[in-house]
């Protein structure tokens, strides 16, 4: 949400409010199945305003939360089309690879091969989700890396960010394309292998090592 | 002082007219002399502060009639018994100054003497009726949660006033500041329950005493009867008892108002 201060105020610090009044606005429904179901009579949304739907949340049948979020995370300088092109290209690469494997596989192995690139991406990101994060807490001049618990949405973001940074590293200097790096990473992650999974495990180890600093929380 | 001097002192005191008041003599006095018109002059009032009997001719004829409103027949012991007026609290909570009103104790519960209650109740009802007949304001007070709404309803029905809520300190003593203007104070306050929900004496009793407003109080066996003008020792907790008392007070107010309407 873009936050905008009142035009009349002369000096402002960033206000912590949204353009939508929180008391009066609720999130829109972007899920097709949920839209079909009618609202119960005493649901508060009958009496409140609904926020405007975001452009990338159209309730199509192919709407996928993980892929949409990955597009946003991989975006640079606001070039969403570029990012979407990359991510969908990566998914296409995954699909092609999987189909090749499927064609080559024997009849009893065929059902075990996952053909949906979306599913592979979901599983891959899910496997990369860390359970904790490290946050710097300064006490008496020293900054300690303290492990903090995190919500599911933040864990998802951190997984995507780790994967994005690793893919950008690989794609630096033009040796590899970003889409190829991302496709490879996603496929490996769905098998619990790859650099992102390694990074996640490193993070977990550091969190475990810094367990003693946990009392600096709060 | 020797006996002769003492006797002459008594005779002199007797001669000045400081003898006990009686309705017969008052009536005789009134009929003997012509009734003065209007309020007593400042001079007479000054004399009256020393020798009250000087003001006796100014007393209205209504006050010389016993049972002007026929309330003696309204109150009877059987009805009071049915309405459970004789039940007090447990013997352990009995207030020292309420012992005079008890008939006795039964199974640990104080029992009021309904003859005494009857006498006091008639006196209180009569007073209330007289005040209403002179256009007085009666304020009914009760903080008993079960019956307070009934008290309010009764007060509204007879065109009087009720206060069954939290008593703001200074409501009577500091009224000008609280209301922003001087208002007419109640002429009598009737406490259907003289204790608050915290089992403490209701603050309005002291305020009424400070403002010299006569009070009628239904006192239970655990209540402190001090500072109340007209006591009525009775049960103030049972809804039936309170309903009975409210009915009687309503009747007294209505009779007083009817008398006033006839006079005007």
């Amino acid at each position, binding site marked *: 949400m873009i936050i905008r*201060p009142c035009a009349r105020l002369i000096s402002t610090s960033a206000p912590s409010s949204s353009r939508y009044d929180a008391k009066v606005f609720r999130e829109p429904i972007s899920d097709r199945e949920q839209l079909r179901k009618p609202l119960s009579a005493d649901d508060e949304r009958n009496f409140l305003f609904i926020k405007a739907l975001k452009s990338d949340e159209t309730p199509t049948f192919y709407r996928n939360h993980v892929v949409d979020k990955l597009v946003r995370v991989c975006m640079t300088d606001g070039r969403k089309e570029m990012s979407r092109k990359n991510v969908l290209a990566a998914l296409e690469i995954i699909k092609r690879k999987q189909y090749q494997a499927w064609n080559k596989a024997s009849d009893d192995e065929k059902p075990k091969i996952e053909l949906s690139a979306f599913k592979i991406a979901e599983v891959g990101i899910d496997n990369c989700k860390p359970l904790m994060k490290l946050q710097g807490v300064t006490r008496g001049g020293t900054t300690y890396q303290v492990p903090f618990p995190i919500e599911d949405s933040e864990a998802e973001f951190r997984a995507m960010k780790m994967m994005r940074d690793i893919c950008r590293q690989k794609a630096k200097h033009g040796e590899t394309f970003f889409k190829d790096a991302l496709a490879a990473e996603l496929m490996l992650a769905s098998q619990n292998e790859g650099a992102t999974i390694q990074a996640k495990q490193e993070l977990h180890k550091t969190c475990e090592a810094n367990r003693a600093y946990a009392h600096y929380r709060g | 002082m020797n006996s002769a001097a003492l006797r002459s002192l008594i005779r002199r005191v007797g001669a000045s007219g400081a003898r006990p008041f009686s309705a017969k003599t008052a009536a005789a006095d009134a009929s003997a002399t012509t009734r003065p018109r209007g309020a007593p002059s400042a001079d007479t009032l000054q004399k009256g502060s020393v020798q009250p009997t000087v003001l006796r001719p100014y007393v209205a004829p209504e006050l010389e009639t016993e049972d002007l409103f026929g309330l003696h027949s309204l109150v009877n012991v059987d009805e009071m018994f049915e309405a459970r007026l004789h039940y007090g609290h447990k013997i352990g909570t009995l207030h020292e100054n309420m012992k005079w009103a008890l008939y006795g104790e039964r199974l640990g519960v104080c029992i009021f003497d309904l003859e005494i209650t009857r006498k006091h109740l008639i006196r209180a009802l009569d007073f209330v009726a007289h005040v209403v007949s*002179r256009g007085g304001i009666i304020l009914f007070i009760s903080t008993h949660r079960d019956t307070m709404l009934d008290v309010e309803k009764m007060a509204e029905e007879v065109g*009087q006033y009720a206060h069954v809520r939290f008593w703001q300190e200074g409501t009577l003593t500091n009224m000008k500041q609280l209301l922003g203007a001087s208002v007419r104070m109640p002429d009598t306050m009737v406490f259907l329950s003289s204790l608050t929900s915290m089992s403490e004496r209701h603050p309005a009793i002291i305020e009424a005493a400070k403002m010299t407003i006569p009070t009628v109080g239904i006192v239970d066996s655990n209540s402190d009867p001090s500072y109340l003008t007209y006591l009525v020792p009775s049960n103030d907790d049972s809804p039936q008892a309170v309903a009975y008392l409210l009915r009687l007070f309503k009747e007294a107010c209505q009779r007083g108002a009817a008398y006033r309407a006839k006079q005007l």
Partner: protein
Amino acid sequence: MLIRGVVSTASSVRTFSSLSSLSTGDSPSSSGRAARALEMYMRGVKEHDKMMGREGANFERGKRHLANMMGMEASTMTQNDIDTAIRYLFPSGLSDKKALPILAPPDQVLPRLHKLAFDEEGKPMGARFYTLKPAFYQLLSEVAIRSEKVDRYGGEKKTIKEKNHFQTGGSVWLNEEKMAKKLGEKISTHMYTQLMMAMEHLISLPGSATQNDFIMQWREPIAAGSGNKLFGPPIPPVEIDATTNRRTATAKADVKATYAEVKVSDAGKGEFIVDGMSLDTFQSLQARETLLCPLIVSDLLGRLSITATTKGMGGETAVPRAVRHALSLSIAALYPEKKEVLTLSGLLTRDPRKRERSKVNQPGARAKWIWKRR
């Protein structure tokens, strides 16, 4: 009645004045300290009324002058017109609204005199007068009486549906300020809490729906979203072509600096023209999704014919967003049964987001210069 003894204190003046009134026929208001105070109060009330009359006359005269200046008719001038005229004649850069000049009827500007009501004998009106908050305690008593009534007759039903509870959806209790204003008395927080407890208890009883009218007097709808009001431009009217009987609606919407006007007709074959160009001009998948979103949600793909025109400086996504909003409004006009789905999808709300201004000493709206410790 037997008198024990004649009252002998000096403060018996009051007693005697009221006692003698009956026998001598004098009115009580002509004597006594309270009566004199009452007279002072009545005088104060008369003076206040006179003052209000004067101020009212001043206001009317001012209004006539203002109308003359602005070339309007004084009789048809509304308060809105007066406010506009004053803002025009006295332009001000002051940010505090209370510092700006106003011309309004005196009862809206001057503090109200709290009038105490008495009858000619000086008796106050209202049985709860001596509680000092008669209106508030009357409300409290009424809630108690209604609760008792509901409690007695509402408890026999078994299921929740039968239990007939008051529906709390869509409304909230009046807050302390509004309650105080409605009752015309100051209310302390403790008193307000008491009232809320009583009201909540009433609502919790089965059968409380019978007291719906009473309870709704003390509740207000949440914001303005009572189902019909939209945040943004309204749903346009439907025009029916006389010859073909075809229904058309034209809606206008804007996103950032882009303005879109969309004309939708039913009985179409799915034509979608934006600025004279068809949908495949939009190469971005997201743009196409956005444009078709209202049709997907309301399940009208291929059934309408849509023509959109845009104006303005908006960016890549602003055009589809504006067209989407206007298209949703038109569909809601043509098919009222689809309105609920469209609102729940968030398609009938105007997106208020705009570019955030950059601040001084910062490179942008949020970004900061690199922070150096020394």
